[in-house]
């Protein structure tokens, strides 16, 4: 069983240096050899991984479909390790890819056979927790949930909570601008990071932003957040801590169908309530979660909503009454309330384990990620159901209903002839539905390797060129996680016509002059 977003046919099939492949001769170019020799000279032996079996455990991230063995891996212990490695890569023109916990779902941390994988998972010190300032300074390998654990004693927590929060790293969150169930009220990673220590693609160490919410000058930090490792590597992150709410109520409501649950969602938000979270799961997703964690959701539900309200107690109580009424008005036949952390954890467990749990009901599946305007929810869900019915490919739906961020899970069995292709086709068509509805091809999992081929469906050439110019400003040599995000690799600062001969990469069709 594997979870994938798509295969080379529907997405990410970028020819050239970024194409996924097993480590081959490119892993042994003179430049790569030089990098290997130089980092081995400068860094401790335990930091530099060259053993083939070990390197292969870094072949993929949470999108196990794409696998590339890196030429070399550096398990950094400090900003110096990172800066040294990046500087050497820059001097030798060898690409590097940052990796956090490797939970990414778009192949963002997919290594390069001709490059260095710089792994941040050992840099996991929480340098400072300052409750008075509502700030914490953490190394990039720190696990998201550990920030909350460290802040909890002071009455604070770290708000962005991807379902993978128990293992994904802050560095990965920054790179992906990750969101989570509670982003509806609290915003994404970008709303909770105020500064970063950053190794630019030439190996220099710079400070971006600071402790203040909005540093003067260009918002370079804002540029870097969500850049998927293509602009450099974060080596320390200053995050904003949020006061633990005075009161939290979590409810689980069972509905006959996703239409009813969707209508309830719209009604709740239409009533001016901003819940901390509104999450929806359909019948198939519920079945998977039940199989995995026995979350005991209402029997026979065609959809469930998890609604969480937080804030001052009086306010929460008032909103709670409204939410209950609106759910029942829209057909909720079961309404369960969690009053303490244990009950709350039980409700959330089903939702947070949903992706991985789908493995219980299907040998293989694709985790899709798309965004639509919330009001289009019933329409798009129906269209997905029709796609599924007409193709006999099952689709389970889990999503951040409040944000209109869909996570359709397309189920298939790769051992059955043709099923993989059919699943990919549906998966791609779902993205088309999102674009048609005025949404986007990714809500929070990023473009990475997997969706770069979809970028032109959303953006014009001019849009993509503009993005490339930003990239070139940071990384003129195109060595920082190249081949991700953009469908076609470009060479920076080279204007067509100035050269006598064609650039060899352009000539071979690998890159376009930009």
């Amino acid at each position, binding site marked *: 069983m594997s979870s994938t977003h798509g295969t080379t046919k529907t997405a990410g099939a970028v020819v050239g240096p970024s194409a996924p492949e097993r480590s081959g001769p490119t892993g042994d170019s003179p430049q790569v050899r030089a990098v290997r020799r130089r980092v081995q000279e400068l860094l401790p032996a335990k930091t530099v991984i060259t053993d083939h079996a070990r390197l292969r455990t870094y072949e993929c991230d949470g999108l196990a479909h794409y696998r590339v063995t890196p030429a070399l891996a550096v398990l950094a212990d400090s900003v110096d390790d990172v800066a040294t490695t990046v500087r050497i890569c820059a001097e030798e023109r060898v690409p590097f890819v940052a990796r956090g916990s490797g939970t990414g779902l778009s192949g963002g941390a997919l290594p390069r056979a001709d490059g260095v994988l710089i792994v941040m998972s050992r840099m*996991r010190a929480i340098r400072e927790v300052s409750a008075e300032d509502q700030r914490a300074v953490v190394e990039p390998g720190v696990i998201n949930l550990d920030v909350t654990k460290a802040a909890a004693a002071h009455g604070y927590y770290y708000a962005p909570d991807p379902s993978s929060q128990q293992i994904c790293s802050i560095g990965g969150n920054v790179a992906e601008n990750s969101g989570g169930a509670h982003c509806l009220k609290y915003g994404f990673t970008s709303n909770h990071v105020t500064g970063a220590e950053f190794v630019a693609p030439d190996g220099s160490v710079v400070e971006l932003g600071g402790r203040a919410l909005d540093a003067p000058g260009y918002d370079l930090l804002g540029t870097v957040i969500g850049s998927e490792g293509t602009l450099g590597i974060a080596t320390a992150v200053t995050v904003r801590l949020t006061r633990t709410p005075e009161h939290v109520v979590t409810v689980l409501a069972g509905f006959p169908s996703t239409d009813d649950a969707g209508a309830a969602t719209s009604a709740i938000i239409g009533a001016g309530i901003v819940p901390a979270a509104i999450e929806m799961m359909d019948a198939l997703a519920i079945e998977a979660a039940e199989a995995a964690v026995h979350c005991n959701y209402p029997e026979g539900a065609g959809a469930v909503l998890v609604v969480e309200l937080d804030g001052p107690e009086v306010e929460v109580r008032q909103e709670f009454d409204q939410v209950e009424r609106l759910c029942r008005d829209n057909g909720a036949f079961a309404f369960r309330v969690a009053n303490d952390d244990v009950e709350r954890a039980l409700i959330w467990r089903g939702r947070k384990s949903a992706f*991985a749990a789908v493995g219980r009901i299907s040998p293989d599946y694709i985790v899709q990620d798309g965004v639509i305007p919330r009001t289009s929810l019933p329409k798009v869900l129906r269209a997905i159901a029709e796609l599924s019915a007409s193709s006999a490919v099952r689709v389970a739906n889990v999503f951040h209903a409040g944000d209109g961020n869909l996570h359709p899970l397309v189920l298939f069995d790769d051992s059955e002839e043709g099923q993989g292709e059919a699943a990919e086709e549906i998966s791609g068509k779902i993205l088309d539905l999102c674009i048609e509805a005025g949404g986007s091809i990714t809500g929070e999992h990023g473009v990475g390797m997997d969706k770069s081929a979809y970028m032109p469906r959303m953006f014009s050439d001019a849009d993509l060129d503009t993005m490339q110019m930003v990239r070139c400003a940071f990384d003129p040599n195109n060595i920082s996680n190249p081949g991700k995000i953009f469908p076609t690799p470009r060479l920076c600062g080279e204007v067509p016509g100035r050269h006598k001969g064609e650039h060899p990469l352009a000539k071979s069709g690998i890159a376009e002059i930009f």
Partner: protein
Amino acid sequence: MTTDALAAAASGQSIDLPTPAFDEYRPPSAALVGDCVHCGFCLPSCPTYVLWGEEMDSPRGRIDLMKQGLEGDPLTDSMVGHFDACLGCMACVTACPSGVQYDRLIETTRAQVERRHQRTRRDKALRGAIFALFPYPRRLRALRGPLRGWQRIGGDRLLRRTGLLERIAPSLAAMERLAPRLGKAERLPERTAAIGTRRATVGMLTGCVQREFFPAVNAATVRVLAAEGCDVVVPAKQGCCGALSVHNGREPEALRFARALIDSFENAGVEWVVVNAAGCGSTMKEYAELLRDDPAYAVRAVAFATKVRDVSEILVELGPVATRHPLPITAAYHDACHLAHAQGVRAQPRALLNGIPGLQLREIADPAICCGSAGIYNVLFPEPARELGDRKAANVLATGAELLVTANPGCLMQVAASVERAGETIALAHTVEVLDASIQGRPVASLTGGGTSS
């Protein structure tokens, strides 16, 4: 093709395709390997990942290594090193939302490693010494007079030369320190009658380390079971359950132990086989799988395995009848991996402890992370074991509890040694010892004063 083969090709040598890591006899199942969706959810509860933060020493990475082996990559020293470093704590099994059976995977992998991998002489000698000693109650007993014991193993020149003594010694020393005053271990009667109405007839495993170093735990188990209405049968001729051998890939030895144990209990006329050591219980519950290819034992193993219960399970299943007397004490309960992760037994010991009037139960932070004892792991890998022990000790001490309760002799010794290193003390007891004190109406001091306290 591997890079080695490529290099060989480049240098003009003939290419010997490397021998694939696994052979046909019970390789790790490709289907089970395929169940892993690479989500990484198991990483934070894996003790080696917690220590080192690297992929190849995480469950996900080890499954990747198995996958490489199944794809035909050779069983390299580096691969074996990462399999060896796994504590077999099964925290990853609990953590995995996809239901990946890592327990099965590592067990089959280890058996292949033991059969196919050439270990260094030193490593072989150390493992040999351990397995010549720990699973044999009588040999352990011979070591109970410490100096006499040291001299005896010390007499083995190989042991000395390879520094094995220093490796095994700390564990034995810890056992020795924790074990109650030397003296004759009480012999348990072969049959103890239920007090009051008989509710069940149970057999009891006496274990190896438990029997020799913590005989009080076995005695308490018999008393508690009897008090709760069980006839307790203790077959005299019982040996090791094979847990250590199974967990270290020594399959033939494990099979021998398992068959013998089934023989000992088969005709004892018992409804349940009760175990008070977590590691033994988890292995005995898996005898069916272990002996599935043995025509003479396959069916009998199934029957045996279904009867196996941890002592806390059976006590909760039966429900209390004996009166609990108050024990005003704060106690921290430590989940032994082979009870919590391997058997899913978490609620029962807590329920039993909570049923004692006056006892205040405290939870230990990061309960899912192994204390580093892990069978013989602390002998094979003293450094990481020690680091994990220190982390656990810090979390235990932070509870401020007076008494540490757990259900495995290995954990007791490991945590005790770490607490001592931290310059602190805490009283230690097995869950049944606490219950026994309460049922017998003994004072708190009987737990905090003498007995197994450090």
